[in-house]
């Protein structure tokens, strides 16, 4: 998948690029509207990550033009202007999602995956996870033919860890993913532990869950 990052804050753009490259995306960078439009004209992208506060204008004004060049691309707006009007305007202009700064790169990737499944009809087969199989689209976890009942939050947790497999996720990152801005570290981290305990219990009834590791003092990781 090809991604264009339109972000004037260079350091931030490089970090995003660094992260997405590791997740096997191919990235281009643009730091101005002009620069962004030039790149869109030449290349076709699957994802365009658009910052709104650009030095030569408002990123929102770039959207309609960009859609002409790349009608099939998915647009995600990234902005520190977290007000609702911007959000609505962005979505009205055909953006697919909206992430207020500061956002987590893990969250960005998870949103991109969700858009890919929805928009590009990426048919993911059943993905193996230890002795289990995960169907992200249908939000199922299966052992052979058996469907294992997980609550909505439990599945969210597991799929988030699964999406970022081999990477340790802190309790805070996990609770932010589940509760968004309402995450309260002191409280919800314990709750994450309780969730993981439940997930393990439910899965262990069918097969071992060695893939779901606890990293002491940090959080959890799914090893593949």
């Amino acid at each position, binding site marked *: 998948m090809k991604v264009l990052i339109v972000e004037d*804050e260079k*350091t*931030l753009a490089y*970090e*995003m690029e*660094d*992260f997405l490259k*590791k997740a096997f995306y191919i990235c281009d960078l643009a730091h101005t509207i002009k620069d962004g439009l030039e790149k869109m004209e030449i290349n076709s992208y699957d994802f365009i990550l658009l910052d709104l506060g650009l030095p030569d204008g408002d990123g929102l004004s770039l959207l309609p033009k960009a859609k002409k060049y790349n009608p099939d691309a998915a647009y995600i707006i990234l902005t*520190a*202007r*977290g*007000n*609702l*009007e911007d959000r609505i305007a962005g979505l009205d202009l055909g953006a697919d999602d909206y992430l207020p*700064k*500061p*956002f*987590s*790169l*893990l969250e960005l990737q998870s949103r991109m995956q969700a858009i890919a499944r929805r928009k590009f009809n990426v048919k993911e087969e059943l993905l193996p996870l230890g002795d289990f199989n995960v169907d992200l689209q249908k939000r199922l976890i299966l052992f052979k033919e058996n469907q294992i009942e997980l609550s909505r939050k439990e599945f969210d947790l597991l799929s988030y860890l699964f999406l970022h497999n*081999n*990477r*340790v996720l*802190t309790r*805070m*990152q996990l609770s*932010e993913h589940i*509760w968004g*801005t*309402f995450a*309260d*570290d002191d*409280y*919800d981290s*314990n*709750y994450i532990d309780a969730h993981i305990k439940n997930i393990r219990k439910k899965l262990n009834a069918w097969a071992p869950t060695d893939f779901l590791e606890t*990293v002491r*003092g*940090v*959080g959890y990781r799914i090893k593949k």
Partner: protein
Amino acid sequence: MKLSSKLILFITSSKLAVVLLFVISLPFLVDSIVSEYTNYSLRRQQAKVINIIHKNGIDHYLQGDDSYGSYTMLKEEYIALEPAAAKSLIDTIKTAQRVVERDTLNYRILMHTFNFGSKNYLLEIGKTTASINQYNKPLQRIALYVLMGLIALTLLFDLIFTRALIRPLGKIIKSKLINRKFPFKDYSPPVPTSTQDFKYLDESLIQLMDQINEAFEKEREFTANASHELMTPISILQNKMENLLGDEQLPENVVLRIVEMMKTLSRLKKISNSLLLISRIENQQFVKSAHVKPSKIIHEVMEEISHRLSEKELEMDIRLKEDRLLKDVNQDLLFQLFYNLINNAIKYNVNQGSILITDEFPEGKNYVITIQDTGIGIAEEDLDFIFDRFRKANLTENVGYGLGLSIVKSITLYHGIEIRVKSKVNEGTTFSLIFPAL
């Protein structure tokens, strides 16, 4: 007491005092004036008599007798002329008693010796003191009536004048001070007055409010800009740390340190987000057009937060009997409002405590929702400051009210909701939200 009443009161009492003083001293004044006049008229009569004697001789009076005496019909005045000892020289006016026709009366008497034809004579002219003082009482009475009338008249003028004079002050108070809500956005024109002091007062107030507004505006702007500007560096740091954590080769102690850093960054993020939210509320960037029932909002909050109840085994009791539709509100903000209050009720509660949410709509009063907990409570001396930004209560080391209640305050202000708090340490805290009348 109002200034005009004070002025009128002072003017009235001072006038009354002066009049009273005058009326009390009137007898003495009249006495002295009358005695002066009596002396003067006695002297004139003396001059007249001496004049006649010089003209017509002493026998004009004596008619061959040794002495002469005469008095008026009612013995109010008398005149006596008699020979006096050769050596005596008298010239005086005094009050003394005389017996006239078996009546003893008080007289004001002029005694004067003079020489005529080498003989010494004593002339006495007397006036009864009663006749002298007969005008005293009526004079006093008339003076009193006239003065009272004058007082009433001048008071009326004073009243009209002071009222007219002070009217601009009332206008200034009404237009600039009473019912003015901060921030002073509504323009209040200067009050027309020709009194320099009022002009100065009015202008000063306008200036002061402009200054307050300006300072407030600057603070809002700063908060908005600062929190907005912070977002980019926070984003960079967060993403850098996330990328660092993704490195599988990192030794464990470094990972732990990065996690600690991320926790700190998360705090910074929360502070910035809260400040940004407060400044957005203060800048009125939220539309108030939703009609929503509190039960719905509280239900949404509980969905988000109920898992935290189990940790302390808290009991949650929601009893909304009235459940009035709240009109023209911003649902997101009200969610945040209830979220923060309920979250605090959980956060500062004790194990196996309880939270009670009730509402009431008393006759003739406004709709009230109350959130009551059995938590650690807030000390009396801290109660006044719980809504202040960055104020921490010295409860325990890590317990501070942070910005949660500042956000609550901003949201209530923005919606015209009155918030009251009652608390007792170790017993619990009760927040009451009094909604404006529909």
